[in-house]
């Protein structure tokens, strides 16, 4: 009841302010009238009676005010009056308002955008059932000192059957392969998985059913079904051919599930004898932890289990340990560093923005020092004086925050579009309540931080002092200038750190772009080709078919050289692993450290590959027509491999073998130059080349490389026609070597581009900051300049003194920034290639840039200082 009355009466008072005021006034008036009437009835004259009533009851105004100020609604009223006042103040100072708002919008927008990505990728749980119990199985190898995210089939099977903490383990592999539909082939991401896969993720098909172990069956994504069959239901029962096998689509998985890595088709896998090796890490595995079994506990269990396996298979499982990692961490681990790095950079931007706004506020509060002093002198409390400063700040921050969030929408779109393909969970990135909450918290935080100093200064104004000193006569208080200078220094320092980061990453990009890859990237058309084969005989036929195709392509105008390869640098197929050379005196290989077996990339190539790629042949010969499936096995090795395993001895004629497919000795027939396999950031390393004819199983899914004399992509249609004529069932995609190279450094480019744009924003903000400070101090010193000029000071000297002030501030900021950069540099070491964290060139460039920026920002106010007319300045006021 009472609460209800409080609310309704208050609201009524709020809505009908006048009504309530009138009622109170009426009641007070009536009270005094009654009092007077009573005095009158005791015989006083009306005038005397009124005076007596006032003597007893005090003034009517006081009573009205006291009675009228009751109720919570009055608090609201005071606040809304103050807000209106603040809004009016902001409206009257549009330059301040707009600058501060835009500055904050940039800072908050950048942070909201980056946080959106961080939240969606790193913080939000995976969109799967039992997300927190999903794990990836990894193999730790003491030989290489780290864990690889892959497993061997038998190890995974042992973990599945022996672990009690893991409810189930699913083993899968796959990648981008051609899926043959009725009339064409489509490149799709295909995963070959066992039946446990559906159990791990608790999958429920939206149409059809899950596949079972015995059948040749597949499940497809809702999108795949829609794109190729029109609707989910229509896909069920259709047959597609994958790697030559017919697979019936038995189920369609709902939209949103595309694990692993955007899979469109899941095919039931059937264990094969070739999978039994405990040294070929060709599989990935996901597991579901039992409810209540933590990752630590499971880790301990797997450690013991690995020990038992090592004892049982001392040769193969030496130094091997099975581990579990939360699936989310496994998926997002690589992007974590980049995202946190970007977040930190965005934080710096916000800091700079805050400092800028704080500085603007400070200038404003100095302009209104007299107003504040008068308020203090008239008895306003400290809080009352601080309040408008805070309110203004909150209002500006709110507007900035709203603009920032509005900015964040397109920014997130741009971010996602720019992000390298490897960015996990990109499809899940969207603004949500968490992000809005974060933005709101940032907004309030910035409001408080940026108002703190000005408000405190406002409250400390000593009325007597403030009224005495007159800024326009150059009599500012000493502390004020120092504080403004300090803010500018902080801003320059923070910008410096950002700019150095950008400089280092840009230098890294330059290094990467200028790197010799060990092969040619110009004028190279690359065709991803996937020929449908199953049996080895068919594979052999595919090799023959490709050979013919290469010959035909070579005939085409504009094509210089053609070759095929499995294991193209920066390409999507490839393999690597251990190899052995025939040791001892007979073979002449260097002694092998059993704990560090020799490791190499494996590449399967057609004759002419080295010439087409421009990889120099250093010794011996290339593969040729004489190397057939039936002739003796041969291999070509790279220089790094030769050095690693044969030292200074001539490797040609030596024996080498690897576990790629056949465990047979191969004779080294040639040595070629090294290439950087994964990306320009890679070290040129050991590569073992084998001819396609002798490894036909790896020859159906290849890259065809064409060295052209014209722009590579102009040949695309002609090549497409030719391949379609040879075999329309070859799935194919086109790209260029340059594009592949570009993609291989997408992450580096993403980082460099973002940090550079952040640094650019920082630079603009710092420039504004310097400009603001210098312009303000010049305006305040007009009188001083006038006096100096009246006494004959040179204009040049005055300009020099103004620019000198800016340069001094910049220098102090640069020194502070250098110290900070050197301290923070180790955080970025892992992102740099060919550049030292304390790269003197970057530091020097950035210092010069900031110094020039600061001086430029001071030019306009400096020039205006020299234009001061002594007479006008002295007469002013």
């Amino acid at each position, binding site marked *: *009841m*009472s609460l209800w*009355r*409080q609310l309704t*009466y208050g609201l009524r008072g709020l809505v009908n302010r006048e009504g309530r005021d009138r*009622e*109170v006034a*009426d*009641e*007070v008036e*009536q*009270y*005094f*009238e*009654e*009092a007077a*009437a*009573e005095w009158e009835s005791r015989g006083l004259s009306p005038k005397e009676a009124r005076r007596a009533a006032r003597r*007893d*009851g*005090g003034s009517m105004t*006081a*009573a*009205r*005010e*006291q*009675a009228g*100020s*009751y*109720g919570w609604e009055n608090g609201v009223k005071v606040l809304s009056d103050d807000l209106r006042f603040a809004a009016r103040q902001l409206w009257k100072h549009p330059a301040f308002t707009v600058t501060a708002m835009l500055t904050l919008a940039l800072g908050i927008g950048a942070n909201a955008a980056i946080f959106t990505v961080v939240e969606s990728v790193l913080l939000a749980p995976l969109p799967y059932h039992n997300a927190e119990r999903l794990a990836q199985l990894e193999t730790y190898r003491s030989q290489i000192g780290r864990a690889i995210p892959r497993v061997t089939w038998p190890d995974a099977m042992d973990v599945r059957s022996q672990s009690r903490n893991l409810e189930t383990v699913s083993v899968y592999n796959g990648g981008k392969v051609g899926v043959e539909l009725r009339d064409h082939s489509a490149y799709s991401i295909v995963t070959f998985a066992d039946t446990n896969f559906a159990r791990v993720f608790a999958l429920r098909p939206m149409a059809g059913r899950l596949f079972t172990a015995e059948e040749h069956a597949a499940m497809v994504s809702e999108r795949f079904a829609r794109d190729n069959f029109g609707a989910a239901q229509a896909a069920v029962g259709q047959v597609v051919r994958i790697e030559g096998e017919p697979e019936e689509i038995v189920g369609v998985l709902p939209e949103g599930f595309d694990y692993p890595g955007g899979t469109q088709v899941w095919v039931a896998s059937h264990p094969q004898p070739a999978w039994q090796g405990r040294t070929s890490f060709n599989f990935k595995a996901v597991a579901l932890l039992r409810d209540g079994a933590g990752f630590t506990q499971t880790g301990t269990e797997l450690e013991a289990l690995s020990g038992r396996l090592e004892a049982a298979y001392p040769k193969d499982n030496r130094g091997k340990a099975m581990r579990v990692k939360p699936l989310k961490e496994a998926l997002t681990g690589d992007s974590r560093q980049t995202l946190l790095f970007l977040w930190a950079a965005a934080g710096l931007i916000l800091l700079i923005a805050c400092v800028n706004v704080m500085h603007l506020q400070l200038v404003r509060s100095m302009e209104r020092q007299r107003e504040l002093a008068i308020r203090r002198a008239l008895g306003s409390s400290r809080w009352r004086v601080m309040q408008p400063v805070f309110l203004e700040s909150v209002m500006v921050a709110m507007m900035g925050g709203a603009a920032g969030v509005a900015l964040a929408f397109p920014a997130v779109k741009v971010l996602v579009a720019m992000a390298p393909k490897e960015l996990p969970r990109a499809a899940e990135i969207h603004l949500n309540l968490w992000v809005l909450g974060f933005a709101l918290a940032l907004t309030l935080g910035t409001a408080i931080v940026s108002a703190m100093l000005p408000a405190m200064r406002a409250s400390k104004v000593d009325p007597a002092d403030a009224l005495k000193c007159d800024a326009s006569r150059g009599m500012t208080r000493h502390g004020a200038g120092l504080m403004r200078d300090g803010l500018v220094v902080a801003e320059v320092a923070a910008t410096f750190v950002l700019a150095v980061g950008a400089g280092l990453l840009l230098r890294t990009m330059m290094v990467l772009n200028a790197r010799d890859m060990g092969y040619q990237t110009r004028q190279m058309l690359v065709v991803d080709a996937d020929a449908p084969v199953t049996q080895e005989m068919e594979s052999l036929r595919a090799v023959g078919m490709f050979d013919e195709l290469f010959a035909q392509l070579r005939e085409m105008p504009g094509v210089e050289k053609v070759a095929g390869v499995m294991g193209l640098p920066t390409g999507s197929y490839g393999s690597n692993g251990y190899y052995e050379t025939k040791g001892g005196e007979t073979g002449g290989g260097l002694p092998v450290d059993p704990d560090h077996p020799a490791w190499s990339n494996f590449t399967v190539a057609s004759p002419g590959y080295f010439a087409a790629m421009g990889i120099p042949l250093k010794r011996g010969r290339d593969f040729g027509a004489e190397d057939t499936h039936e002739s003796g096995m041969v291999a070509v090795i790279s220089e790094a491999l030769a050095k690693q395993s044969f030292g200074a001895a001539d490797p040609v004629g030596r024996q080498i073998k690897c576990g790629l497919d056949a465990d047979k000795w191969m004779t080294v027939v040639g040595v070629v130059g090294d290439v950087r396999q994964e990306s320009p950031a890679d070290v040129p390393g050991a590569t073992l080349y084998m001819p396609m004819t002798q490894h036909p199983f790896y020859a159906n899914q290849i890259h065809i490389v064409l060295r052209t004399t014209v722009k590579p992509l102009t040949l695309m249609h002609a090549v497409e026609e030719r391949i379609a004529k040879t075999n329309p069932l070859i799935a194919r995609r086109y790209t260029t070597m340059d594009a592949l190279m570009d993609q291989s450094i997408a992450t580096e480019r993403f980082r460099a581009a973002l940090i550079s744009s952040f640094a650019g924003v920082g630079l603009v903000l710092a420039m504004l900051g310097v400009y603001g400070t210098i312009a303000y101090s010049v305006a305040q010193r007009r009188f001083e300049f006038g006096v100096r000029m009246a006494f004959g000071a040179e204009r040049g000297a005055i300009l020099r003194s103004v620019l000198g002030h800016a340069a001094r501030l910049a220098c102090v900021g640069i020194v502070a920034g250098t110290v900070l950069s050197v301290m923070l540099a180790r955080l970025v070491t892992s992102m740099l290639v060919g550049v030292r964290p304390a790269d003197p060139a970057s530091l020097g460039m950035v210092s010069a840039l900031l110094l020039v920026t600061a001086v430029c920002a001071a030019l306009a106010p400096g020039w205006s200082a020299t234009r001061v007319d002594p007479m006008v300045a002295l007469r002013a006021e």
Partner: protein
Amino acid sequence: MTDANGMSDANTDVIQGTMDMLILKTLSLGPLHGFGIARRVEQVSSGVFKVNPGSLLTALQRLERAGWLDAEWRQTENSRKAKFYSLTVAGRRQLEVETEDWTRRAGAIARLLEMEG
């Protein structure tokens, strides 16, 4: 808000916290307007308590919002419009509570003072 009215004669401002009880008690005898309440309090206390109109009207609003009083504008006996306050059921209950509380406190204080003497 400054409500120092600078009176330093024998009569006192109503003791802090007792205003509500005095108003409720006064109204328990029948509806009255603001001045009526003030006059009744002063009369009954033989001028010991002096009521400040600002404080009284504020207190009336508070009690009304607490649901202890109802208010209504109507004619006075000398045909002027005035806001008349009357006790609600909840107000009557509150008066009992406060009276009991006051009696207990006053008794305790009286006993303490007697012990001294």
